[in-house]
């Protein structure tokens, strides 16, 4: 099979399934051969997942985590896009604000945990504000980048057809920057999903992050720990697929891959 050949239909499924099966087998036999008492085998984890579903706490935890992400990420979107569009639109303002942004941006949202707890106490607000901080910067940066890279012909054409500043922004600059903004949102959502788990381990007593730490603390149930980890990974994958699907919408698809 060379890389140019169109994969056959069965191959598209066969190889990923085989890779997954090999991974599970490697995991299973590593547990068996090392005779570890701590780390669970895939079968233990499967039982763990069944137990979590059966106890019904799982759904509450998933919904709590998703709710926190929705609030933090939603607020970051609602604030980040207009701020980014404005800064991209007024390069002078961007020059003023950019140094501060660039210093704040590389700070891990985890480092904000003590600050969030001091300011907002232990609880939901601390968790959502951490997600907000983590998601905000990638959205702002992507929006600024998107606006400042709008080809000048689009702006000139917009002005030529008599568009005022407001219409130019909504009908030319925003749609032209949208593919880059969507990339920023996708990165931000990934970060939000990473941060919610960390925040829930420290600041609250519900959600998937809490499930991980609680399963360890109350009886060293590592089967449940790994089960929760897998569920976190699976939901993260689903969220990301949602954005990949957004990128396929025709009015933004021109901005991806080599289409122009």
């Amino acid at each position: 099979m060379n890389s140019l050949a169109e994969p056959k239909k069965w191959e598209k499924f066969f190889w990923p399934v085989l890779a997954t099966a090999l991974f599970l087998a490697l995991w299973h036999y590593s547990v068996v051969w090392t005779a570890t008492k701590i780390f669970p085998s895939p079968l233990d984890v499967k039982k763990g997942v069944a137990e979590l579903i059966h106890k019904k706490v799982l759904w509450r935890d998933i919904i709590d985590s998703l709710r926190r992400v929705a609030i933090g990420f939603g607020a970051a979107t609602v604030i980040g896009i207009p701020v980014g569009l404005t800064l991209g639109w007024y390069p002078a303002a961007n020059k003023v604000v950019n140094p501060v942004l660039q210093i704040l941006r590389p700070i891990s949202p985890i480092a904000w945990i003590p600050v969030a707890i001091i300011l907002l106490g232990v609880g939901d607000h601390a968790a959502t504000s951490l997600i907000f901080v983590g998601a905000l910067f990638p959205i702002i940066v992507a929006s600024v980048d998107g606006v400042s890279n709008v080809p000048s012909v689009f702006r000139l054409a917009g002005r030529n057809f008599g568009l005022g500043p407001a219409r130019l922004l909504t009908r030319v600059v925003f749609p032209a920057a949208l593919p880059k903004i969507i990339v920023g949102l996708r990165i931000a959502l990934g970060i939000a999903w990473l941060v919610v788990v960390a925040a829930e381990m420290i600041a609250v007593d519900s959600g998937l992050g809490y499930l991980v730490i609680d399963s360890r603390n109350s009886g060293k149930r590592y089967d449940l720990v790994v089960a929760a980890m897998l569920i976190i990974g699976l939901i993260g994958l689903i969220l990301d697929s949602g954005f990949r699907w957004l990128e396929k919408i025709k009015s933004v698809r021109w901005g991806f891959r080599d289409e122009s």
Partner: protein
Amino acid sequence: MVFTRDGKSTPVLDDISLEVADGEFVCLLGPSGCGKSTLLSTMAGFLSPTSGEIKIDAEVVHGPDPRRIFVFQERGVFPWLTVEGNIDFGLFHLPAAERRQRVAHYVKMVGLEGFEKAYPPALSGGMKQRLEVARALAVNPDMLFLDEPFGALDSITRLVMRGELLRIWEAERKTIIFVTHDIDEAVQLADRVVVMSARPATIQQIVNIDIPHPRDISSPRYLELRDGIFQQIGLAHKI
């Protein structure tokens, strides 16, 4: 027209005086980088002249205006809008019925029927260029500025597009100012060819093309006019 960048000033256009009649098709012809696009952008109001002024209908030009639409070399169509959406772009101040009617009319005029709902990435280079012309015509401008509109097309498509443009021009009688560095293109299309020198550009000569359309591009008069411009620009006629 003088450009200033990094403290260095580059004179681009020098002592240009040109008058264009209503409904006329004028080609600005000159070597690459001579400043003909700068002249066109200044006429369109995208740039302000450092000295002198542009007057259209006795009015000094201060900025771009929907009565005069600029057609860019390529990629001027909006890739996030369909063919219909692009043609409709400049019609936001009109009632919906009129918009629909104009969109349908210009889709037909440029031969994009069946592609109304297509997005520009799905169109060929020639179709995109036709779409941009349709978008410009839909707002019913007095003038069109075309900046090497066919420069990125292959030579067969370019020839077809010239015929299309002449057909549209004869139907709509817009004033057209067309920038090109292709001598044949200029002589095939224009009523008058404005030959420009290298930078800082001046007008070397204005050639009247007194051949009626459709032009026979192997007729002696065509070849005579073309060769005259060849010599004017200083090109040898043998390769």
